[in-house]
Structure formats: structure tokens, C-alpha cells
């Protein structure tokens, strides 16, 4: 990943205090002479189509079959980890306060906005159950699920890994994440469960047994364990 340097983003140089910069034409800068695209935070970007996602997923499935889910999760994990380091830098640069000192929801919303601008979808964090050691993330317009359509199984392993990787770095605890509801299963949005490993393993087990997202929510809230 490029070392972040926001110096080359002209709009940012001109209006460094403009925190609402996520409109497509504001966030991205098209450097036509170099043939590159950079964003407000100094990262290089590339534009891809759905073919890229299909190619990646189907190519993997061809190579490793059912293990492709685990591979996608691992890719997400590494991505989330790397991105948290990048985020640490640009957040502080943008708001002059360290992530540790910031309002948590504000911090997380700020982290996700570039992803929304990039087309990864909008999200909603549900921390209502945090005191029980887990939380939910609702994702709207998953790039992966919308690309693949209704295939009857969850497909957003990349996102699950991303959340696990990012949050693990941010809270400095080993967290896992699993998708318990997916657009690709006919639902209107995707739902992820984030928590300590044992929690997620339990949920995975219940999922395999045919539990729905709301079954899992109920069981977690009532304190069930494997």
C-alpha cells in the first residue's frame, strides 16, 4: 500500500477543513497526466467493475473450491489490519485528535465513509449488545452481494474479514466476524456479528445448523453458548 501523502490532493490542499468531502467529485482526484486516481487521504485508487469481483471469487472457487470463503476472509483480515494503520494516520491528520481520544461512533463513521465513497456500501453499527461482548454491523448495498445476486448463501467473506481485521487492531483484542444474513440469500441487507472468537465460532455452529439471523441474535442475547 502506498505511504499516505495527502499533499497531492488539490481540493484538500485548498480546503483542509472541509470534512464533508465524500462526494465522488470531491473525494477522488483524477490525475490524467499520470493516469492515476488518488483520494482525499492520499491513497491510490483504481476503478474496477463487477467483473473484477466475479473474476476474483469465481477464480478462487475454481482453484480451492469451498476454501475460497476462508481465503476471502483472510484477504479481508489483512486488508482491515493494514487499513487500520492507514486510518490511524489520516484520522489524526484530519481531526487533530488521536483515535483513542475520539468519540467512538464518530471515529467509526469516519473510518467507513471512504468505503462508502468507493462503492463498498453504507453501513450501520448496532452496539446495543456491546455489554454482552458482541455487536452487529448492518451493511447496505454490499458490492460483493449485489454483484453475485441471490445465490442462496452468504458471500461477503471479504467484508467479514475486513471488519475482524480492523476492529482487532483498533481494540487490541482478537476479534472475529461472521456474516449471519446476506443480500445474496434474498435479504434486503447484510448483517455481521463481531465478537471474540468463541462467540463467533458458536454463531457459525448455529448457522450451520440452520439458524437464522434472528435466532442467533436471540440466543446471544439470552447468554447461550455452545
Amino acid at each position, binding site marked *: 500500500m502506498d505511504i499516505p501523502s495527502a499533499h497531492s490532493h488539490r481540493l484538500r490542499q485548498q480546503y483542509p477543513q472541509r470534512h*464533508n468531502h*465524500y*462526494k*465522488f467529485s470531491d473525494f477522488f482526484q483524477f490525475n490524467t497526466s499520470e493516469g492515476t486516481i488518488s483520494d482525499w487521504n492520499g491513497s491510490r485508487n483504481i476503478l474496477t467493475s463487477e467483473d473484477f469481483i466475479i473474476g476474483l471469487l469465481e477464480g478462487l472457487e475454481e482453484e480451492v473450491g469451498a476454501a475460497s470463503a476462508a481465503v476471502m476472509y483472510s484477504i479481508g483480515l489483512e486488508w482491515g489490519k493494514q487499513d487500520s494503520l492507514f486510518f490511524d494516520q489520516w484520522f489524526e491528520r484530519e481531526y487533530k485528535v488521536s483515535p483513542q481520544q475520539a468519540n467512538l*461512533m*464518530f471515529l467509526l*463513521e469516519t473510518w467507513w*465513509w471512504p468505503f462508502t465513497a468507493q462503492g463498498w456500501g453504507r453501513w450501520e453499527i448496532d452496539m446495543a449488545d456491546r455489554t454482552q461482548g458482541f455487536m452487529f454491523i448492518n451493511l447496505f448495498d454490499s458490492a460483493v452481494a449485489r454483484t453475485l445476486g441471490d445465490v442462496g448463501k452468504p458471500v461477503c467473506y471479504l467484508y467479514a474479514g475486513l471488519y475482524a481485521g480492523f476492529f482487532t487492531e483498533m481494540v487490541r483484542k482478537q476479534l472475529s466476524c461472521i456474516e449471519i444474513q446476506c443480500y445474496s440469500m434474498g435479504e434486503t441487507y447484510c448483517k455481521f456479528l463481531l465478537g471474540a472468537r468463541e462467540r463467533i465460532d458458536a454463531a457459525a455452529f448455529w448457522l450451520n445448523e440452520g439458524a437464522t439471523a434472528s435466532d442467533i441474535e436471540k440466543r446471544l442475547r439470552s447468554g447461550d453458548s455452545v
Partner: protein
Amino acid sequence: MLSQLQTLVREVDGRYATDTELMFLQNYLQTVRLRFSAYQKIQKAETEIIQQVKKKLKTADPQLLRRGKVDLSAKWQRDTMRGLRYCAHALLVADEEGLEESFLLWFQSIMRSFKAQYSCDVTYKVMQDVVGQYLTPQEAELFCPILAKARLLLGQ
């Protein structure tokens, strides 16, 4: 109008636009004088408008701009000024879509982070009443729906 203009520029590529395609410009031109005069009035009265809104909010609910011991009036004022300016800009160029994309959607997420939806709801409701004192009914008819959109998105 602005967003529609961008779309038009993209779509006409190498040909002349049809009358139907230019209709939005026509609609814009029919209201442009109102928009300009309203914009200037809002700019001129900005400080008063915001002070009046603040006064009404505090009168109705002294705790609205406080969080325990912390007084959030200064932050509210900065945010509200920015919101008013963005709304005024949207009025000028008749671009509600642009307002959403460049400001409201992001700011909505920030307001949710700070659980400030209710104060936004009340702020933009009161603001519609207050601006009515500075604008003609026709001007207010153009501006208030924009404030209402802000209220809807930020107050959720």
C-alpha cells in the same frame, strides 16, 4: 439544476439538446430572480437568523444545547451556520441532490454519532419559521422545502 446540467452535458455529447432536455433550465430561469434575492437576504441576515433560532430553542428547551454540564451552543452555532449556508447554496443553484451528496448524508452520520438528531430536527423546524420573517412568501416557498429536507435527513 446544477446536477441536471452536469447530466445534460454528458448526455448531449455532440448534438443539440432537445426542448424537453432543456426544460429544467427553463424552470430554473423562471425562479432565478427569487433565488438570487432570497440568497442575498439570507446572507445578509445570517447572524440574526441563527441568533433568533438559538433564542427560540433555548426558550423552548434550555437543555437542548447542553449535554450534562457541557454547553454545546458554540458547536451548534458553527454547525447550523454551515448548514444554513449549504442550504442557501442549494437554493441558489436549485440543487437539492447536490446538497445531499456533498453535505447532508455525511453530516447525518456525524449527527447520529453524537446523538444530536433531535436538536437538528428542532433546529431546522424552527429555522423555517424564522426565515419566513426575512423572505417573501414566494422566496420562502422555494427555501423552506430545502430546510425541510435538511430536517428530514439530519433529524432521523
